[in-house]
């Protein structure tokens, strides 16, 4: 089971869904917080719902308020970076670029991509955490200590 877990994690990394920060968080797990990463991710998805909604609403306005959008995206990026959501972060950066360029179409397009990545990651992590819970109390980081 541990092996399966490790494999899954490796693939998430290989596919670029997660980055180093995820490992940092796993390192924080201990007896006091054995499911720390899962808690963090859950918190993130809960908290970012509001943000996603705000962005969507803002994208419906005409004309777009780019600075506001950039602000939202800054927040989003910050949050996403907290546990290493790599692809989501990339989309955030892209979005901000479009904001700065004043490219409304680019923003809207990128946001759709972002939402996709956001949702995909959520599903994958759900599976991962379920596996982790089954596999054993404390999941150690896969890189050698």
């Amino acid at each position, binding site marked *: 089971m541990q092996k399966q877990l490790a494999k899954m994690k490796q693939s998430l990394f290989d596919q670029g869904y997660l980055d180093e920060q995820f490992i940092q968080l796993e*390192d924080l797990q201990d007896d006091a917080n054995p499911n720390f990463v899962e808690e963090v991710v859950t918190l993130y998805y809960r908290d970012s719902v509001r943000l996603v909604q705000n962005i969507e609403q803002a994208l419906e306005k005409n004309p777009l308020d780019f600075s506001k959008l950039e*602000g939202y995206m800054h927040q989003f990026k910050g*949050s996403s970076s907290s546990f*290493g959501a790599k692809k989501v972060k990339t989309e955030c950066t892209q979005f901000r670029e479009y904001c700065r360029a004043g490219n409304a179409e680019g923003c809207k397009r990128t946001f759709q991509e972002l939402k996709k990545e956001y949702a995909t990651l959520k599903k994958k992590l759900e599976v991962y955490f379920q596996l982790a819970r089954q596999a054993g109390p404390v999941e150690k980081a896969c890189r050698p200590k």
Partner: protein
Amino acid sequence: MGSSGFSSPRSDYFPAGLRVLVVDDDPTWLKILEKMLKKCNYEGSFFFFSNCFFRNVFLFTVEKDTGFTSAVSLFVVTICNLAQEALDLLRERKDGFDLVISDVNMPDMDGFKLLELVGLEMDLPVIMMSVDGETSRVMKGVQHGACDYLLKPIRMKELRNIWQHVYRKRMQEVRDIEGHESIEELYMMRNGTEKSSDDGYLFSGGDPISGRKRKDSDIKSDSSSAKKSRLVWTVDLHQKFVKAVNQIGLDKVGPKKVRDLMGVSWITRENVASHLQKYRLYLSRLQKENEVKATGNVCLQNSTILQNESNAAAGNVKSTLPMPMTESKKALYGDVIDPPKTNTSGISFGHYLGPKSEAKIQNQYSWGPGVSLMQFKQGQNPHFQSGHMLDSVHPRPSIKEPGIQGSYGKSRSQGIEQVTQVQSHLTNSNSFGQIPCSMWGTKNHNLDQYMFDYLESSSQRNSIHGTGSSSASRLWDEEFNSFSSRGLNAINLLEESIGCSNQEFVPHVSPHLFDSLNLDCEYPCDPVEYPMMDQGLHIL
């Protein structure tokens, strides 16, 4: 964990138990940072710190295999997701924190603004964080006085070392103090005016009301190892400062003049200079902000004024309030009797500032700690209010001050009444030997909490010199019930070697704290290292 009610002397505790306040609107990051900070432990064995800032704290070397490694947390963490709340917390527990880490982008207040306010009011090191690492932003952070600027995602190893900022800052202050002591002496000798007052405080720990600072011949002789208490700009002290600045006139002010006018002998020109710099920065920022918005004024309760502030979210009230006041004051002190740009504010200001205004302001004082900033800023009010009114109301600086101090003092004293007795002993003692000992009786992984409590209770700054040794031990009981496994024979040894003056205190403590556990420890304690204790009486 980090939210005990009392404040701890930040100067006395190193490096464990540094009290960090983390401010971030992102709950995910708050959770992560809290966990990361809490995880930062001592690595390896404890060391005996005899010198350097740690004069009041020493740990004994312990053999590694006794298993005492990594049991002590470096930090005691408090988290906060609103900047305004963070400010309130900081003000409430003046001296309750050693370090602030804040995000740059927060909805209720700009991180840079928080940075500035913290620097001005509490003079704590502030570390900024952001996902944005653009040079201009980092520069802005530096300019506003940030000790460091971390980029998110933050790694644990970055956090682990942030304690250095606390000590660096203290070192600078020590240097400031030390560097100018000789000049001070010279100055004093030449003027011959301040001698008697100096003598007074040398022994009693300084003017209890006006903040704390120890300047002490013992420390001087041991200056390289002694850690001096840092100057804390208490409300009272700041008021004196502002008063002096106002009298001189902001444009003509110089640190020496201010210092002279303040009449507080034990602060140095450098202390004043650095505070003045911060104050100027603060005022100029306020001025800029107020040039943009229509200024409110002193109206603390009146919502009409608040509407003038563009960010008049409820939480902003307190923070934006002082601005118009000082801004107007600045205008006033620029010797501009008819400050054109503040005319619009002058109108509402004038309208607000009727005879009722004092009553209203007075009321503010009962709001308690949350308005401490306003309180001491309001100390200036009488000055500029009257001036600004452009009529012949005379400046009455003294009016508000008692009020300010009164309520503020009250709220403070409530918080500290419990510990006054304990620390009153310690404040007079020459050593804090007891403290560190408790630090390493460490099978208990809540050690840091207890240490923290211990220290804070024992060193609570207070001007009250009571003698309640029995109550002290009672307090110890409450705090340290679980200190059952503290094998601290060392304490006794210390007492003997140091001949600490608070002998009567220690015996009360020892039975509770220490049993005769054998620890493999050596305690090369050096009695000489017991410099006068940090009176840390900074009270208010």
